[in-house]
């Protein structure tokens, strides 16, 4: 029962400690959540603030007088990250700043071309007569024209004819000449673009792999850097060519940001054409990544910012980033269709806070995600481990203590039981001879004896029983003295031979008193160690009514030990017992 109580208490302690740990964990999680919510709030505020600021700036720009607007927008566009661009929309067309940020334009100013009749003759010679030599002559003249438009288009044709005629070197030089014309349009496309494209094609045809690669790389790089104002189909044509020449493996796509904002410009231009006003805040997913579009309208014009993730991160979230990090969170943005703007905007696993665009009037859904560093995931932090270990140690102590107590109590009970048995045995051992003494002495005193034989018998019994009583009392007193530690031993050395002789004499005398050998009880065999303990008499002692108090062997063992010796017992059931007494000799 005692053990049961301890088990229950230990279990209760264990449960309590587990509850504490769980509570701890819940609190930690709560705290993480609070911090994350704060982070979300901060990021939200920052985005809203910056967005408003941008809108103000765009409004100011949109309302500038005509002659100032381009300049100012250009100035404002200084330092914009590569994935963002400022756009001015006029009725006539579109401007983009910084220059070169877009890789193609939705609308281009009408470009002049050389009058068609100038080349009618040359074209006829080239295509109808197939007389390239003559065409070359004609075109050679035209290529020296002072009119750059004419010169450009002439060089294009010249190069082509030279190529067809197999005059490679001359073709190359024609194209090189063309390239030197720079931005002059040749057939609506910048001359140097045409030239370099043609050169590369020439190299391909000619088999000059090295030069081909060089030209193609340079072409592609320039396309990417927005060097020319091109329409989308022209860009795509040359870009695809370049990719083909370079081999897809050697190439990466153009900067994703540039593609996205070019598509954004396209999209806004179409909206501008249709509505003549632009929407204030929206996002566009035409190419990865998603782009945010902020626009402000004025009379006959609009100014817009198209910005990618780098812009958002570096311009709008940079100042709150350290605080957000300290709160153990990361910010992710996703547009209304779920496309990621910052990080992976998909609904993150684990704990996150959400701010919907519909509530915040931002064009995104904002997520704040707790990063694992602060997450309380692990229940077994060092502190919790210590607590659990401590409580476990306590439980162990309690269990151990209760076990020891239980054992001690059981032992005490056993001793008490033995002692009460002893008392019972002693009482009986006293009463038996006393009964005989009283009975016989009464009979003698009353003269109830009718023969001398009988009288003699009575006297002998009286002698015997009183002797028995005497021995019993002496034995108990000796035992009492032993127990109290008051026994005084007189140690003397004796001759071993003499000792043994006197021992045998004593043994013979005792044996004579009990002439009949009785069969053993087997107790020695069954309890060879405990039988030496005081009060232990053997189970059969009671049933058989064997005389004795159970202290004899205990006394013997004590005495022998005090003399520096030992008693050993070897016993076999049904065979017999051998008690061996070892005493030290003087040597």
């Amino acid at each position, binding site marked *: 029962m005692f053990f049961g109580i301890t088990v229950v208490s230990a279990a209760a302690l264990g449960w309590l400690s587990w509850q504490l740990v769980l509570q701890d964990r819940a609190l930690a999680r709560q705290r993480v959540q609070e911090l994350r919510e704060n982070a979300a709030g901060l990021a939200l505020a920052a985005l809203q603030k910056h967005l408003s600021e941008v809108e103000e700036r765009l409004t100011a720009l949109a309302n500038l007088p005509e002659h100032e607007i381009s300049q100012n927008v250009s100035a404002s566009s200084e330092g914009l990250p590569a994935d963002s661009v400022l756009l001015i929309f006029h009725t006539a067309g579109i401007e983009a700043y910084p220059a070169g940020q877009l890789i193609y334009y939705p609308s281009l100013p009408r470009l002049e071309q050389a009058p068609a009749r100038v080349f009618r003759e040359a074209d006829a010679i080239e295509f109808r007569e197939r007389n390239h030599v003559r065409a070359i002559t004609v075109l050679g003249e035209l290529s020296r024209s002072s009119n750059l438009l004419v010169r450009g288009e002439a060089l294009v044709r010249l190069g082509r004819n030279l190529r067809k005629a197999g005059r490679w070197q001359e073709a190359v030089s024609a194209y090189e000449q063309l390239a030197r014309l720079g931005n002059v349009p040749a057939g609506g496309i910048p001359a140097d673009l045409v030239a370099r494209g043609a050169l590369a094609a020439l190299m391909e045809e000619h088999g000059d792999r090295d030069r081909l690669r060089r030209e193609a790389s340079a072409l592609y790089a320039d396309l990417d850097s927005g060097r020319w104002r091109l329409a989308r189909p022209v860009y795509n044509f040359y870009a695809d060519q370049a990719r083909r020449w370079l081999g897809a493996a050697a190439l990466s796509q153009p900067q994703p940001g540039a593609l996205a904002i070019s598509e954004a410009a396209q999209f806004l231009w179409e909206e501008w054409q249709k509505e003549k006003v632009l929407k204030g805040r929206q996002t566009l997913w035409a190419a990865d990544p998603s782009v945010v579009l902020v626009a402000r309208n004025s009379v006959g014009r609009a100014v817009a910012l198209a910005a990618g993730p780098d812009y958002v991160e570096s311009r709008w979230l940079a100042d709150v980033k350290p605080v957000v990090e300290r709160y153990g969170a990361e910010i992710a943005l996703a547009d209304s269709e779920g496309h990621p703007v910052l990080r992976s905007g998909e609904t993150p696993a684990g704990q996150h806070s959400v701010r919907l665009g519909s509530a915040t009037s931002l064009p995104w859904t904002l997520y704040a995600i707790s990063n694992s560093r602060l997450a309380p995931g692990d229940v077994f932090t060092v502190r919790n481990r210590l607590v659990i270990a401590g409580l476990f140690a306590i439980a162990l102590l309690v269990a151990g203590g209760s076990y020891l107590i239980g054992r001690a109590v059981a032992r005490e009970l056993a001793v008490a039981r033995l002692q009460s048995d002893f008392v019972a045995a002693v009482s009986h051992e006293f*009463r*038996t001879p006393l009964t*005989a003494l009283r*009975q016989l002495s009464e*009979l003698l005193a009353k003269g109830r*004896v009718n023969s001398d034989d009988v009288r003699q018998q009575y006297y002998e019994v009286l002698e015997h029983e009183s002797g028995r009583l005497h021995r019993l009392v002496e034995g108990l007193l000796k035992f009492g003295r032993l127990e109290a530690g008051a026994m005084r031993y007189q140690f003397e050395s004796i001759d071993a031979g003499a000792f043994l002789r006197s021992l045998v004499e004593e043994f013979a005398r005792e044996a004579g008193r009990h002439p009949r050998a009785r069969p053993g009880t087997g107790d020695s065999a069954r309890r060879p160690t405990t039988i030496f303990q005081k009060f232990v008499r053997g189970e059969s002692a009671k049933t*058989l*009514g*064997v005389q004795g108090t159970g202290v004899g062997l205990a006394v013997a063992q004590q005495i022998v030990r005090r003399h520096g010796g030992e008693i050993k017992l070897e016993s076999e059931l049904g065979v017999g017992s051998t008690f061996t007494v070892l005493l030290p000799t003087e040597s």
Partner: protein
Amino acid sequence: MTRILVVEDEPGIALGLENDLKLEGYEVEVARDGETALRRAREQSFDLILLDIMLPRKDGFAVCREIRRSGLPVSIIVLTAKTQEAEKVLGLELVS
């Protein structure tokens, strides 16, 4: 002649009982243990059995029970040196 069977293992006590009863003119036999007592009781007819409880091997109560169960028409007086109440009562119960 009244025949009495004294069942007592202590020789001192048995001696006193035997002689005194003989003095009174009874025929007395002594049995030293329960088994002997039962055997003798069945072999011979006794008028009275003086039965000590504290006997080796088979104790007095068992002897008493068996004698009663065997249906022998003999009176039993139980002797005991033990003064515990329970045993006194038990003694009376058995005998009746």
